[in-house]
């Protein structure tokens, strides 16, 4: 049986995301069209079988007037419409957390097959828990209920990384140790406005429960990732929109499968695991 291609991070919205900066909209049907766009992957025609889909991040910022349920209503509707293609993703603004939100998260996971939490320290303005009590204690109080819920529901947490001051991947280290039974995915391999890939890999090397996601990753750093932690903990994501899935798949394929110095001549079977097998395992698909 062919290993499916699964995209770890996509977004949909009926309106523009004027915080992140894309628009005018990206509907579930636009995403499905991208997943089904003609492309060749590892020398064969290939669609993206499934995608984890999150709401537009801009809807979740601290100044948003939308409730947690409103932030996720379009994703919920779309996941119900395309249950075989879309896996719901929860963008969890930790400052919104309360008992009602906790219950909503449980309901999304139990009743609607949502499969991942996404936290975004930059957008939501906090440091991940660190040793210094003055910052660390507040952060623990805010975030530990989320991590405990991920443990309870057995779903991974995707953590945005890639810029100062909040989204530096080295800050994942502490919480990865505290919640060693919760799977954490460092998004973008630590690369957005700045490149913190080596730091992301240091954390992943120290913690078996830490994975890295490939959108925005520099190709030579994808190679470094596989050499550092093996292909088993590297997970394809497109971050579509604004990135295009075929280009992001090509980035992974060229970096991993071409001969050195362009790539690392990784076998097609192992590359397939990066493109979907690893995430399927993590999500219990």
């Amino acid at each position: 049986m062919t290993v499916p291609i699964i995209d770890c991070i996509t977004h949909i919205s009926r309106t523009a995301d004027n915080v992140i900066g894309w628009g005018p909209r990206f509907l579930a049907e636009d995403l499905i069209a991208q997943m089904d766009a003609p492309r060749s992957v590892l020398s064969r025609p290939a669609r993206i079988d499934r995608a984890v889909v999150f709401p537009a991040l801009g809807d979740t910022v601290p100044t948003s007037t939308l409730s947690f349920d409103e932030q996720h209503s379009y994703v919920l509707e779309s996941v119900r419409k395309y249950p075989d293609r879309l896996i719901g993703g929860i963008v969890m603004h930790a400052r919104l957390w309360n008992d009602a939100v906790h219950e909503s998260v449980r309901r999304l996971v139990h009743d609607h097959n949502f499969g991942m939490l996404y936290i975004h320290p930059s957008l939501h303005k906090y440091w991940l828990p660190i040793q210094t009590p003055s910052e660390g204690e507040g952060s623990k109080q805010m975030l530990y209920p989320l991590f405990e819920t991920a443990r309870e529901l057995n779903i991974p947490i995707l953590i945005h990384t890639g810029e100062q001051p909040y989204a530096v991947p080295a800050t994942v280290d502490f919480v990865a140790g505290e919640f060693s039974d919760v799977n954490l995915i460092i998004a973008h391999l630590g690369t957005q406005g700045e490149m913190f890939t080596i730091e992301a890999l240091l954390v992943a090397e120290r913690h078996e429960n830490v994975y890295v996601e490939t959108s925005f990753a520099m190709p030579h750093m994808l190679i470094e990732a596989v050499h550092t932690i093996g292909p088993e903990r590297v997970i394809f994501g497109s971050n579509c929109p604004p990135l295009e899935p075929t280009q992001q798949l090509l980035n992974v394929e060229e970096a991993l499968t071409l001969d050195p110095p362009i790539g690392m001549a990784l076998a097609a079977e192992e590359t397939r695991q990066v493109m979907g097998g690893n995430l399927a395992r993590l999500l219990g698909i």
Partner: protein
Amino acid sequence: MTYAVIDPHCHIIPHREPVWGWGPHFKVEQLIAMMDRDYEVMGEIKHVEKAVVMTGLGLTSVGHRTIAESHQYVLESIKKYPDRLYFNPVINPRSALTDQLDQIRVWKDEYNVCMLKLHPSMHNYYLPTYSPFPGEESKRMIYPVFELAREFDVPVMIHMGESPYSIPAQIAPVAGAFPDVPVICAHSGANNIPSNALDAILLARTHDNVYLGTSWVQMPELVQMYYAIGPRKIIYESDCSPQAMGQTLRMVTNLHLPPPLGVGAGKDEVYHMIGGNAARLCKIPVES
């Protein structure tokens, strides 16, 4: 209008690169094979028709080679593929500068010299600064290179992408001093700090002679670039090796897609970016 794909930023070396370390080699035959792979460009299968090649940068930095020694393999390769390959000699301005420039004059026509390359990070210098130290020394090193580019009527490609020597804003003084010499800001400064591309965009907006290269750039910054400076100042480049041509080319051609994945750029605009601009600036002949 030409519908050719030209890659103006490639490196070849017959052994391991001595500074960056990539290897075991990237020979000219590997480059030609990479150029001849199938690339989907707006629904059509295309190949990279021509490439501008540089030597492995480390050869110009360590080992005390003359410019002829550090470029020997590139010269042989261009002789072998004169219709496919063009030459961008890498100048280390800290080492026998006059000899290097004289040698490049000798090579000019025989070896398709179409650009000159500076790499402030590799060779440890600041581009000319507003302050006298190190500005005056830097002018002594860099102005002769720009004067040669003016004499040849070719652009100067300058590596950009990390502190302390390769921050895009550092190009401003020399770009202002030589407004008639085109400058290609390689990687748009994004090589190791992707958000540097935003500074490069400001530089290109404020200097008519500054063009921006796309290797290592991320799509959100490329979209900004399109709206800020237009498709005639954006130049596709792969930086192969070590980067592959496929995903780097795909990113630029994705500007053809409607928002939010692209900007809805027209076919001709895309071909300016992936070939026409480089052909025009570097005077690379392509069939219409």
